[in-house]
């Protein structure tokens, strides 16, 4: 797979919860060639981004959406269920970015690990769905997780399927860092200590030099860029004008976000993603 320059942006404008604003913004963001749109950001979560991500799901053609989730809006049991649903509804175009709002980083790591433990209580090939025999699922492939962390304790099994991508892409922002294995994407400014991740996005502004960023990409220092946008409409246009060319040619528009970005499957994976469900998508 050709290595691609990734484009990411975040929006934390409360007006994004207005459908008259959100619809055109999503269209514009996709037209601008964004690979990822973060709903909210570390330090600014003016809505329930999980609800907005679900609303966005049927409108996505190629872009991934990444709800930003602080602990006050997400117990692992609720998060596991909501993100499983949105990942299916979005055809696997989902990521998530847990952030602290004054909590210790270890609590966010605990939230992530508890949520993953609930997802992993379902093997990826649990569903059978055979009408003729009446066999719906394999009971031996569903387990209680008995997760016990310092902040979160959850037994499971969760009443939600393992997500379509097994786990939605985990995004960690250096502005709210925490340490867990298997981070898919990290966002960090130049010179800022970046969380260990499969891909690194450099936090830049709309005035940064695209040429220098192309060089950094060519040298393998970064895998793409992330911009925190103040408002949607004019800024998305500026973003596209300045940076869209970095990502040419346009990426392949099939498969899940994990597949499109060439990211590895989560390690705890015990079997391939449920074939019967996936085929029907």
């Amino acid at each position, binding site marked *: 797979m050709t290595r691609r320059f990734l484009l990411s942006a975040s929006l934390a404008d409360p007006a994004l919860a*207005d459908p008259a604003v959100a619809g055109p913004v999503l269209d514009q963001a996709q037209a601008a060639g964004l690979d990822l749109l973060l709903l909210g950001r570390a330090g600014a979560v003016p809505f329930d981004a999980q609800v907005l991500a*679900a*609303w966005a799901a049927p409108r996505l053609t190629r872009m991934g959406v990444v709800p930003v989730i602080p602990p006050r809006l997400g117990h692992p049991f609720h998060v596991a269920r909501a993100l499983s649903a949105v990942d299916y*509804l979005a055809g696997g175009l989902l990521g998530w970015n847990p952030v602290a709002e004054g909590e210790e980083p270890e609590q966010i790591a605990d939230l992530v690990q508890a949520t993953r433990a609930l997802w992993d209580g379902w093997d990826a090939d649990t569903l059978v769905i055979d009408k003729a025999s009446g*066999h719906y*699922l394999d009971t031996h492939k*569903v387990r*209680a997780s008995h997760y016990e962390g310092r902040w979160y*304790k959850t037994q499971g099994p969760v009443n939600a*399927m393992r997500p379509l991508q097994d786990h939605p892409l985990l995004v960690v922002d250096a502005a709210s860092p925490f340490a867990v294995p298997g981070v898919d994407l990290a966002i960090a400014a130049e010179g800022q200590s970046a969380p260990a991740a499969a891909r690194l996005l450099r936090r830049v502004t709309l005035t940064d030099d695209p040429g220098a960023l192309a060089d950094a990409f060519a040298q393998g220092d970064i895998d793409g860029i992330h911009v925190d946008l103040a408002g949607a409409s004019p800024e998305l246009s500026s973003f596209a004008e300045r940076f869209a060319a970095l990502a040419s040619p346009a990426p392949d528009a099939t498969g899940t976000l994990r597949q499109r970005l060439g990211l590895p499957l989560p390690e705890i994976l015990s079997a391939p993603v449920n074939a019967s469900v996936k085929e029907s998508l």
Partner: protein
Amino acid sequence: MPKPIHLWAFLQGIGHYPSGWRHADADPRGVFTMDYYRKVAQTAERGCFDAIVFGDQLQSRGAGGRTPQRLAMPTLDPMSLLSAMASVTQHVGLVATVSTTYNTPEMLAERFGTLDRISGGRAGWNIVTTAHPDTAPNFGETELPEKSLRYRLAAQTVAETSALWDGLNAQHGPSPQLRPVYVQAGQSNDGRDFAARTAEAIFCPAATIEDGIAFRSDLRRRIAEAGRDPDGVKIMPGLSFMLADTPEEAIARDEALLALADEALCIEYLSESLGFDITSYPADGPIPAEAIVAGTILPAADIARALEKPVAQGVTLGAFASRFVRTPRGHNIFRGTPEQMAEMMIAWVEAGACDGFTLQPAFMASELEMFVERVVPLLQARGALRKAYPGTTLRETMGLTRLPSEMAA
């Protein structure tokens, strides 16, 4: 002109019959796809339904740590499904069942606040306190708070959440309904009192028109006692249905669907209801009543009472389970022609047995489509169902009293 009928579509996985997913026309894989929810939501909107309603649980199904193999589960998170459905519809209301015991006021305020905004004012909250004992360990607790305590906490949670909405509406500008429509479904004395003080719409079982009249009269009395206008609260009993061109065919369709509930399925279904895994006991043997009562996680006295009659009759475990699946859960079950169904619905509303119905399709999506194609036009022709939505918010659609602050906004 008959009184207007309100309609809710109660969607639960692939439908309300435990064997529904096995029907040739059912689409069990669809419940993991957006295409299915787009189709279902647009069907309900085509039928001028007031709202789509999802129930919810905060534990996985099963008993004794064993997940059933023959029941269609898991389902996807209803709040996410309704948010996605908001994106592909314009008018239909979106009612989510969400627990006051296992959500903080902040979670509730942000989640429903965002849904009300992004849906243009179509959010409803079915307020539940969560009754299943398996829920507590999923939230790091050993047991559920006792029932009347749960209702006291619920009242407090609703009040705190409401205060947070005031704050969010001041901060971001008012959301279209200011807060979601409050729905309640509790049947106990605590539940009815809570509904009388809080709810704008109530879901309940009512097997007969007399049951409906009795329930609605009781609630209207309690609502008036709570100092509220009973006409401002809509009573929406459940309604299962099986339609065909003749009554005989409808019964035959129903029997065929019930026959797909084989003995093994029925035993899993019964296990769940007993709160005890009986799948390892022989189906042709006696009902292991002592083991069940000793091992159930549900209130043992209730379970013992439910087992008395079948044990005295000496039926086998398998026969008991098969009978249990066929036993109505207190909801009205209609089997007949579209014309008969429309007449029945109009008669119930005219008699004051309800203000509308919460339709429970046996399986999806074709049973909902059949209702919309065959019964909705008859109700509309009789003037009992609107042909277009009167406004945009769920409160307008349901004909509910607008909030005082909503009028000021």
